[in-house]
């Protein structure tokens, strides 16, 4: 089983290498987007002196960079890929493969994201570090951050996959991707940390899993939580993972009852 996944990993990496021309443009685009965020925070925090409460500009630069890393790791096109497979009928073959479809798709996506992290994420982080300086965490916080980032990847993949399964009803993945993207932007705290949210909106975020994918792991990294609070974040991520795993099973059962294969 592991051998199969490793073969998939190396295949995905080789495939991605075919597009290395694109990588340069992606790095430039990512640097632009991070630069914009840094300028916005410099303009916002500059007005009220060097700091706003206990949030400083280096904190926010680090926040932006960490959010970028998490977004690189959690970004998926699972819904697109599912839709393509449903439309051309190749999902029929996927169902008789010796690996479960979800496992295959998750691992393929993870391989692509790891590639993106190494070849377009890392250069961006180095540039950010050189130009604006990043806050370094303690070893404990770094370890907790890595753990919660891994769980964040699992949560986001499951959310996107469950939304993606609805292509069996609506036959188009693009809009599900937009929908999840919109919910993520508003409720995850990836662009604006939840510290700055109006209380009513922050309260809604409490009840949704999205903040566990961006805001909470970054807060752990920045040392805004003590060890116990950080463990509480990880525990909550595990609870949400369980909820999502069960939901996926339920939706998948409904899909199997409904599925008919087009073309072939």
């Amino acid at each position: 089983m592991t051998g199969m996944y490793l073969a998939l990993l190396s295949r995905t990496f080789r495939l991605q290498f075919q597009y290395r021309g694109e990588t340069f443009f992606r790095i430039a685009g990512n640097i632009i987007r991070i630069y914009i965020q840094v300028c916005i925070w410099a303009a916002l925090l500059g007005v009220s002196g060097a700091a706003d409460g206990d949030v400083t500009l280096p904190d926010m630069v680090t926040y932006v960079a960490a959010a970028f890393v998490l977004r690189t790791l959690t970004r998926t096109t699972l819904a697109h890929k599912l839709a393509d497979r449903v439309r051309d009928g190749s999902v029929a073959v996927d169902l008789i493969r010796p690996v479960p479809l979800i496992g295959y798709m998750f691992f393929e996506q993870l391989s692509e994201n790891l590639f993106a992290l190494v070849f377009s994420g890392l250069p961006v982080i180095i540039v950010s570090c050189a130009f604006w300086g990043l806050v370094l965490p303690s070893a404990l916080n770094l370890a907790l951050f890595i753990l919660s980032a891994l769980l964040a990847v699992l949560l986001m993949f499951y959310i996107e996959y469950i939304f993606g399964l609805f292509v069996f009803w609506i036959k188009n993945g693009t809009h599900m991707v937009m929908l999840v993207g919109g919910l993520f932007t508003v409720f995850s705290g990836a662009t604006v940390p939840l510290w700055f949210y109006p209380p009513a909106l922050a309260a809604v975020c409490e009840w949704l899993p999205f903040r566990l994918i961006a805001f909470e792991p970054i807060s752990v990294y920045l040392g805004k939580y003590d060890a116990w609070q950080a463990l509480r974040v990880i525990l909550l991520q595990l609870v949400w993972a369980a909820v999502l795993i069960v939901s996926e099973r339920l939706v998948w059962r409904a899909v199997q009852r409904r599925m008919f294969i087009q073309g072939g």
Partner: protein
Amino acid sequence: MYALRLYMAFAKVRFMTQLEYRGEYFVRTLSKIIAWSTGFIMVMVLLTRFQAVGGWTVYEVLFLYALNMLTHSLAGTFFMNSFENLPRNIRQGVFDGVLTKPVSPLFYYVCTNVSAGYTSNYVIGVSVLVVCFAKLSIPVTLLNIVWLIAVILGGCLIQAAGFILTNVPAFWILKSESLMTLFFDDVKSFLQYPITIYAVGIQVLVTFVLPYAFISFYPAQYFLGREDALFHPLFQYLTLPVGALLYFVAVKVWNIGINRYNSTGS
């Protein structure tokens, strides 16, 4: 007039096919509403907390945002499907068909790729502009309305030129998708906030090299009675000429591209 009738016939077919799947159309509209309103929501969240960015208050920033979104959607209705997919259509040989028709290739190609998906964007964009006019007490005179329409028209032309110019290199290099992402989507994201918060080099870039600032920043200066731009105050009146010039250049480059076109033969 013949062209107009032809266009209406093409557009009708496109709209009908897109409306055929009601469920999908509904989900698409809903997802577009959510995806585009998130931008407005985040600006409001940020500026409710911080009051102003670079001296611009919440409704002033929303005004910028709405101008960009509305012109993007209007231009996108005609140029998004056609030009976003141009590299793929060239690679797969689909583009051959466009050249065999007895009308101008640009006209035919754009008309057969009209998108019905932007209706909700017009509504959101116009509503936000109306709210901004009210909240910022911009006088609703005939002159202002005519000027707003001129600015939107100019903005549309700049956006259209952007769609064309960032995808036309596909005629030469076939695989050019990343050019559009970088030089259209990424560079345009500078416009979400007043460009005065960026380094001088960036302000020069979006004014003279890729003049996207004429879509929203400079025309907004006129409506908001601001003169905080780095360059001459005359720039706030230049949206329409800049748009017309860029669109003219874009069509010229498109024509060169078409003449250069060799079918991939697939």
